[in-house]
């Protein structure tokens, strides 16, 4: 079988482990798939690329799926992407149908995941083959487009979102510019430490894990209140696959929606699940039941957020642009192994490409098997006290940051600095996802900008006159901005109407 040939037994085992740990992370409110991947990234340093892909994909799929457990049982989304799962999942638990709700969610998840990876398999090479001919002008504009979308859909205002993204670009410029080997923007006294700028990994882990830890510490590390939940009440509450009989259209629509929302850079899982949920509601024959424990809504939300996993990988593997903050961290994994993701990735690394696909299939199946048959045990994870988990996470973050460049204490300081920054950002409203994507893409953005200007002799009009693709990208950028402004105005109008 080809599967065994491409994925070594080691990577299959790691994928299994990744799913398990991912589910645990997803199940604990406040911890996300992104955090799980960030923390385990340093381990991949010691692994082969294919083995680390197994582990990371496992963590990704497990982390997104695990979020449904607290969403259904406690009415707290374990990850932002399971927000809409609470709408119908929790009422089902209150009706004594907890186990049924969990199993419906798990089945919807695996179908969403598998459908989206089929789309990934056919769509990513196609997009990559178009992108191969792009010059630095188009590449620059794609990055600008990605940053615009992220800024325009981020919570709060467009201005602040754009500010956050550009701030990320700015921080990424600290260090040396490779073209002429000149240093810039380095604070005096830190020239030795910052010759190459801040390392990616400590910045990522700091923003996500340490910042979140400080927020939780401020709230007093309260454990989830322990309630006695009756998972299964009576014969009527038993899970049967018959629930899905009339849901095939809903399943496919939600999975495909989730996948395509995942393709848009920076649009996270919560948007996917909200869109699919509202679509399912408007197409449903019994929209009145939504929000009262209707499996249909649960199916929409869960298949959409797992559909996201394949979708978010499409721009990453074909253009080198991450679809969400989790895939942004996956870029870090590729860079650690010295592999550059971009249009050439699939043609030059065919083994790795099929490895990713197989790992996704495997992770989805493992996730289903693990959760479906032992959901009663996973249901207990939501009660693991945070005061045990967070200290462990800090130590793993510190060790990981230290190890990433083979023992540099400055990286641990970077971790703490950005942890503090992440905490302050969350307080004053600076958006972390745009900041992060700006930070990751900043250096490339500059390189393509300068390369384009070199080609045109400094003429800035090159960005508008370089063929139809460039003009198309400008249209997209303007459309994204216009949508954001329109959306902003509309929600303001609604606010004033509600206030009046």
């Amino acid at each position, binding site marked *: 079988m080809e599967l065994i040939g491409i994925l070594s037994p080691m990577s299959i085992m790691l994928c299994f482990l990744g799913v398990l740990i991912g589910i645990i992370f997803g199940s604990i409110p406040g911890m996300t798939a992104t955090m799980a991947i960030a923390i385990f990234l340093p381990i991949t340093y010691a692994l082969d690329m294919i083995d680390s892909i197994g582990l990371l994909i496992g963590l990704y799929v497990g982390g997104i799926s695990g979020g449904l457990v607290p969403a259904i049982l406690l009415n707290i989304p374990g990850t932002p992407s399971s927000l809409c799962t609470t709408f119908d999942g929790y009422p089902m638990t209150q009706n004594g149908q907890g186990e049924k709700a969990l199993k419906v969610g798990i089945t919807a998840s695996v179908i969403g995941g598998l459908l989206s990876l089929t789309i990934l398999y056919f769509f990513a090479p196609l997009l990559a083959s178009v992108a191969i001919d792009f010059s630095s002008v188009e590449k620059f504009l794609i990055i600008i487009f990605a940053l615009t979308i992220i800024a325009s859909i981020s919570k709060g205002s467009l*201005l602040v979102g754009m500010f956050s993204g550009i701030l990320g670009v700015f921080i990424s410029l600290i260090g040396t510019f490779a073209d002429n080997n000149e240093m810039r*923007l380095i604070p005096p006294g830190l020239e030795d430490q910052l010759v190459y700028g801040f390392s990616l990994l400590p910045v990522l882990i700091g923003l996500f894990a340490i910042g979140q830890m400080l927020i939780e510490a*401020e709230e007093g590390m309260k454990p989830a209140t322990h309630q006695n939940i009756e998972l299964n009440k009576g014969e009527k509450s038993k899970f049967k696959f018959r629930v899905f009989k009339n849901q095939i259209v809903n399943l496919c629509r939600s999975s495909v929606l989730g996948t395509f929302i995942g393709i848009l850079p920076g649009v996270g899982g919560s948007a996917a699940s909200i869109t699919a949920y509202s679509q399912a509601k408007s197409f449903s024959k019994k929209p009145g039941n939504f929000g009262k424990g209707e499996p249909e809504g649960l199916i929409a939300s869960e298949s959409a957020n797992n559909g996201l996993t394949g979708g978010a990988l499409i721009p990453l593997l074909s253009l080198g642009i991450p679809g969400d903050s989790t895939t942004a961290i996956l870029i870090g994994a590729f860079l650690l192994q010295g592999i550059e993701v971009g249009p050439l990735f699939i043609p030059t690394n065919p083994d790795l490409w099929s490895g990713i696909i197989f790992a996704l299939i495997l992770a989805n199946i493992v996730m289903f098997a693990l959760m479906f048959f032992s959901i009663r045990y996973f249901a207990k994870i939501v009660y693991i006290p945070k005061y*045990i988990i967070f*200290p462990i996470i800090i130590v793993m973050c510190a060790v990981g940051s230290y*190890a990433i460049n083979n023992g540099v204490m400055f990286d641990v300081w970077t971790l703490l600095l950005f942890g503090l920054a992440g905490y302050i950002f969350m307080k004053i409203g600076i958006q972390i996802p745009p900041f992060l994507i700006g930070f990751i893409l900043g250096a490339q953005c500059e390189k393509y900008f300068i390369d384009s200007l070199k080609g045109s002799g400094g003429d*800035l009009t090159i960005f508008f006159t370089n063929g139809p693709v460039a003009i198309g990208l400008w249209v997209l950028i303007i459309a994204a901005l216009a949508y954001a402004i329109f959306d902003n105005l509309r929600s303001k109008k609604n606010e004033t109407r509600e206030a009046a």
Partner: protein
Amino acid sequence: MEDLLTVELTFSEYHIIFPRIIITILLILGAMIVFRYFYKRVKQGSSKKREFSFFMANYDKSKLFGSAILLFLYPFMMELLGFLISTILFMFVITLLFIGKVQKKALFTSLTNALATTFVVWYVFGQVFDITLP
């Protein structure tokens, strides 16, 4: 700069062209945010002052500042005492801080958490995967 649509390219100045543009955009956006903030306040009038507080109401002072200080001390301890001793100490104190009370059970939990984590991290990272530890 010759005119607005042309950038003068000199090899020795490649590295400052883009940062200059980014800083300019940042300043413009920052100014717009500040302007909008004050514009809103003036429009709303001084009667309805919007209170902004950095910390949430009734926030846990000891846990927040305690963990921040411990985080700051941890790297120093690692350089002084090495990974094993400093991590056991750090884990013990921070778990105790997060539990928030000194009782026999809390002490026991913290100690177990400290010893188990330190050993597992040391073994898995340092020995199995051969990753450099502080």
